[in-house]
Structure formats: structure tokens, C-alpha cells
């Protein structure tokens, strides 16, 4: 090819590369729109409102980061993360009865990691359908938790983890926890071999297999990590309400997957970052809070989440 045509080719091939890929271009737009409406919404920028917003969003955010890991690894989504959050909150509340904050924390985290990691084992080893495995786990865990707790709430005793309700530099501790998890997830995805294996598994499973990546080890790792993050969400909930209940986790799966998709994570896997998921979370929860402040009743929130998710999916189409 002559040099002249080489430059023509280069010019023809040039696409303005935004700081995020094209289907994520909606995200900065959404953030800007949100900020604009927030400024004209009375009461939104008040300290108590922002504080409660951070408190709610941080728990959903932990689940959203967990969901994002599963989505990136090519397993679409899990319907069982919300119930895992609720169960680990119950586990935590129950274990505080032994007067040891460490025991309760470790117990709840081990529980959620093992339960979710086991789902990963079934998916990785037998290539069982991840959605169906997660729905089965949802049924099993809901049934078992209802049977054991007899449908009642478990109250935490002692105040070992009251520190989780304090604020540091005027941001609640749960917000710092979420920030730490986001940075940790991005660090793992970008800088570790395990993280690159996750991304590769999600973008092309056959290629990942050919490259010698152990399918089942990576899948178990992703799910265990997701379980760990959901367990942390459960502990945050239990510390806030000083109790654990199955009701806590209801609906978190849907908000989480909506945040993940609005954040521009590709639903087919292999693409996405935790920081973008955090931005998606801000859009989802912020918009919900604004709607609430404008007097839109809560039942519209369901519809809103559904429509936002639908739009986020449609934007990913060709």
C-alpha cells in the first residue's frame, strides 16, 4: 500500500474514542442529567438526604460489584445474590449471640463465600446454566432460611460493630467499604492474572480454554468473590438494623443488575469496570431518590428500574 492510501485508510478508520466505549456513552449523559435535576430538586442536596442515600446505595453497591464480576465472567447474572445478602445478615445477627464480633463477621463471610462458590463449582464443572443454578439456589436458600428462622427476624445482641454506623470525614463507614470494594474489584480485574482470566473467560470461553485457563477454577473464584461481597453487604445491613432478616435482600438483585448494565458492562461478558458500575449505581439510586422527593410513589420505582434496565440493554444492541 502506498503511503498516500495508508493515510486515507487511517483517516477512514478513525473513530473518536470516548473515555468509555460507545454503548457506555449514555452514562456521562445520565450523570450530567442527574446532577442538573438534583440541583433543582429541593431537599436533595441536604445532608440527611445524602447520608441516607449513601447508606442505601452502599449496600446495593456491594451486591452490584458482586453482580458485575459474574456478568463480566460471562455468566450473565445471578438471582441468588440478594437472598445471600439476607441470609448472611441473619447469620451475622445470630452469631453475635456468642459475644464475638470477629466470629460473627468471619462466620457470615465464610457462609456467603462457600454457598456462592458452590454454585460456581456446579457452573464451572458441569457447565450448568448459571441462571438456572442461581434460581435453584434462590429457592433452596429462601426455603431453608424460612424453615430455620420460622419466618421471624433475628436480633443481634452486643454492639461489637457499632463502628460500621459511624461516619468518617462525614461519609458513613458503609460508603468507605463500598469504595474499597470497588477499588479492590478494579485492581483484581486489571492487575492480577485471575482478573484477566475472568475477562478472557467472559469474552471468549473457547479461546480461554485453548489458552489453558482452568474453566472451573476461574468460575469458582469469581463466584466465591461475588459471595464474599454479598456477605459484606449482609453485614452492613445487619449492623445498621441490628438484626437480620430474609426480607433485607429482596429486590437487590434487580437494582444491582440495573446498576451494572447502566454502568455499561456488556451483558454478554468480557467487558466492564467497577468504577463504571459505581457510576451506574449513582444514576439508579439518585434518580430513584429524586423521583421519591418529587412525590412519585414507591410502586413506580419498580417500573422505573425495569424501564432503565430495558433501555440499558437496548443500547447494547447493534
Amino acid at each position, binding site marked *: 500500500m502506498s503511503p498516500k492510501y495508508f493515510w486515507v485508510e487511517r483517516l477512514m478508520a478513525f473513530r473518536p474514542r470516548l473515555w468509555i466505549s460507545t454503548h457506555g456513552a449514555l452514562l456521562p449523559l445520565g450523570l450530567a442529567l442527574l446532577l442538573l435535576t438534583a440541583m433543582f430538586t429541593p431537599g436533595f442536596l441536604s445532608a440527611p438526604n445524602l447520608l441516607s442515600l449513601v447508606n442505601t446505595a452502599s449496600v446495593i453497591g456491594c451486591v452490584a460489584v458482586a453482580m458485575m464480576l459474574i456478568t463480566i465472567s460471562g455468566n450473565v447474572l445471578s438471582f441468588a445474590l440478594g437472598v445471600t445478602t439476607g441470609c448472611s445478615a441473619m447469620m451475622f445477627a445470630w452469631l453475635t449471640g456468642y459475644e464475638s464480633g470477629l466470629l460473627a463477621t468471619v462466620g457470615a463471610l465464610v457462609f456467603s463465600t462457600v454457598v456462592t462458590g458452590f454454585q460456581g463449582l456446579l457452573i464451572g464443572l458441569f457447565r450448568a446454566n448459571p441462571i438456572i443454578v442461581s434460581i435453584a439456589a434462590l429457592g433452596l436458600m429462601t426455603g431453608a432460611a424460612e424453615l430455620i428462622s420460622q419466618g421471624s427476624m433475628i436480633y443481634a445482641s452486643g454492639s461489637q460493630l457499632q463502628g460500621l454506623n459511624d461516619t468518617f470525614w462525614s461519609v458513613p463507614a458503609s460508603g468507605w467499604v463500598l469504595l474499597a470494594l470497588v477499588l479492590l474489584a478494579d485492581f483484581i480485574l486489571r492487575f492480577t492474572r485471575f482478573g484477566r482470566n475472568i475477562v478472557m473467560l467472559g469474552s471468549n470461553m473457547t479461546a480461554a480454554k485453548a489458552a489453558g485457563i482452568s474453566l472451573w477454577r476461574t468460575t469458582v473464584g469469581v463466584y466465591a468473590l461475588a459471595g464474599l461481597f454479598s456477605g459484606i453487604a449482609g453485614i452492613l445491613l445487619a449492623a445498621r438494623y441490628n438484626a437480620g432478616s430474609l426480607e433485607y435482600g429482596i429486590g437487590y438483585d434487580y437494582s444491582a443488575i440495573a446498576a451494572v448494565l447502566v454502568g455499561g458492562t456488556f451483558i454478554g461478558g468480557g467487558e466492564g469496570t467497577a468504577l463504571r458500575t459505581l457510576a451506574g449505581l449513582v444514576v439508579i439510586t439518585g434518580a430513584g431518590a429524586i423521583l421519591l422527593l418529587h412525590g412519585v410513589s414507591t410502586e413506580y420505582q419498580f417500573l422505573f428500574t425495569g*424501564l432503565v434496565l430495558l433501555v440499558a440493554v437496548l443500547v447494547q444492541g447493534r
Partner: protein
Amino acid sequence: MTSISRLIAEPIIRACVLFLFVALVFAVSAVFAGVVVDATTMFSVLQNFAMIGLVALGLGLTVLIGEFDLSVAGMFILGGCVAVIVGSNGPVFGLAVAVLIGIAGGIIQALLMIRLGLNSVAITLGGLLTFTGIAHVLTESKSVLFNDLSVALAMNVPVLGVFSLRSLITIACFLAGGVLITYTRIGRDIVATGSNRHAARVAGVSTSHMLVGVFAVSGALAALSGALLSFGLSAASPTGLSNVMIPAIAAVILGGGSLSGGVGHPIGIAAGVLVLAIVRSGLTVLGVSPSVHEIVTGALLLVVAILDGPALGERLYQFKSMVTLRVGSI
């Protein structure tokens, strides 16, 4: 061994095996557990059959064509709420509106899926949430009661001893589905689309039309099922998503459907639903708490999910060769 597993994979034979199993369970429970298998037991089994049957059939058809319609659970709820709200002007009108909404929802989802080249799971996840959201808005997140109790009575009155209007409609839909898949060109086109979409398109099948049709039927069946159940209960509520989703998926895979597409048959799905209905009725007879139902259905779904896993055979082979290797070395 391979011939047996191949036979079980054959949809009609699998259905026969499941039906045989059902008969066996009935016989064993009659002889040993002292459970009297009379018209009342059969009636309760068929009522359970009617509850999950139509949703499973719609979902099964989408699985057969190689897609997965998550939105059936949402459409089930929306259909029930719409039928109860609109049905105050006459139950048949309510039923018709619910089914029309089901058809419209299915067609819209299928068209979006085809036009944008998106995965059915992604689109129907959005559909699931949107339909549930609409149901929440319509009912203001509360249970709605249906005042005309005579409709509920008409829905549940025993016909010929064991059937009810609900179960008769369900059985009729299954029979129609079976005839459609086995004896018509459309049925063969659907199976072809599910087995190998590209090859089907090359062979002249209009795969897009098949997809739109199947999703419309799936939406209609889910809405119809929700409407019938709500009329039967005289109430509708926008909550309880997983109550129908878990057994419906379990029934489809138990009945021989495979998520890789192109495998499955309405009669097989009927057999799967029947097995689940019997398990459910059996647990009710035993008097266990409803949470045990969830555990049993969840465990069953987990087992079928593993059995449907494409890598299961490979793993079993590895395991076998590992064992023989150990034995050989000793």
C-alpha cells in the same frame, strides 16, 4: 448404557418414562403410605398441574426454539392483575384483555430481540422487571380482590370428578401444543430453528416469524395462566415472582427440554409438570410447611440443571477413567 440414555433423550419415550414413574409413585403411596388415591387427590394434583402448566408450556416453547423467556413470571403476574382489574366489567373481557397484553408483550420483546440482535435473556430480564413494575403501578403494590365469587366457584368446580375448568383449559393447550409441534410444518420449523438457526434459515425457514410467534404464544400462555389462577383465587397480587418461575423451569428441563435448543416436546413438558404437581400435592398431604416445598423444588431444579449441563458427560468420563486408573495401578 448409551442406548438407554439415548432412549431417555427421545422426547416421547422420556414422557412415557416420567408417566410410568408417576403411576409407580401413585401405586407405592396407595399400598405403603396408606394415601388413598381417589378423585380428591387426583383433583388436587390437576389443580397444581393447572397452576404451573401453562407457564411451563410457554417457557418450554421458547426453550425449544433455542431462547429463554425469563419474562413469563412477570407476565403471569401482570396477566392476573389485569384480568382482575378489567374483569369487573365481565370476566371474559378481563381474560381477553390479559391475553392480548400477553401477546403484545411477547411480540414487542421478540421484535426488539431480532432487530437489535440481542440475547433473549437480556431482553426478557428487562421485560420481567417492566411487566412486574406495571403490575405494581396498576395495583398500587397491594392485593386486589375480585368481587364476583361465582367466577371463582365456576373455575374450581369439579368437572367429571377430577377436572376443573382451569385444568381442562391447561390440558387442551398442551394437546394443541403437541399437535402443533408433531404434525404441522410450523412445529417442524420451530424445532429446526432451535436446532440450528443458520441452517434453518438457509433451508428457507423464516426464523424471525417463528421467534415472534413463539414469544407471542409464550406471553399469551403466561398471561392466561395468571388470569385463570387469579380468577380461581378471587385475588391478584404483584408479588411472589419466584413462586411460579422455579417450578416452571424445573418442569421444562425435567420434561426433556434442553437449554441448547431444538430438544423438547409439549407432551414431555406436561409429564414434567405432572411430576412436580404430584410432588407438591404429596407434600401437602404429608402436611409439611410451605418452605419445604421451596426446598424440594429448588433441589430438584439444581439436579436437573446439573443433568442438563453440556460438560456432564465429559466429567463423568474423566471420573470413570480416573477410577479405573487407580484400580488398575493397585
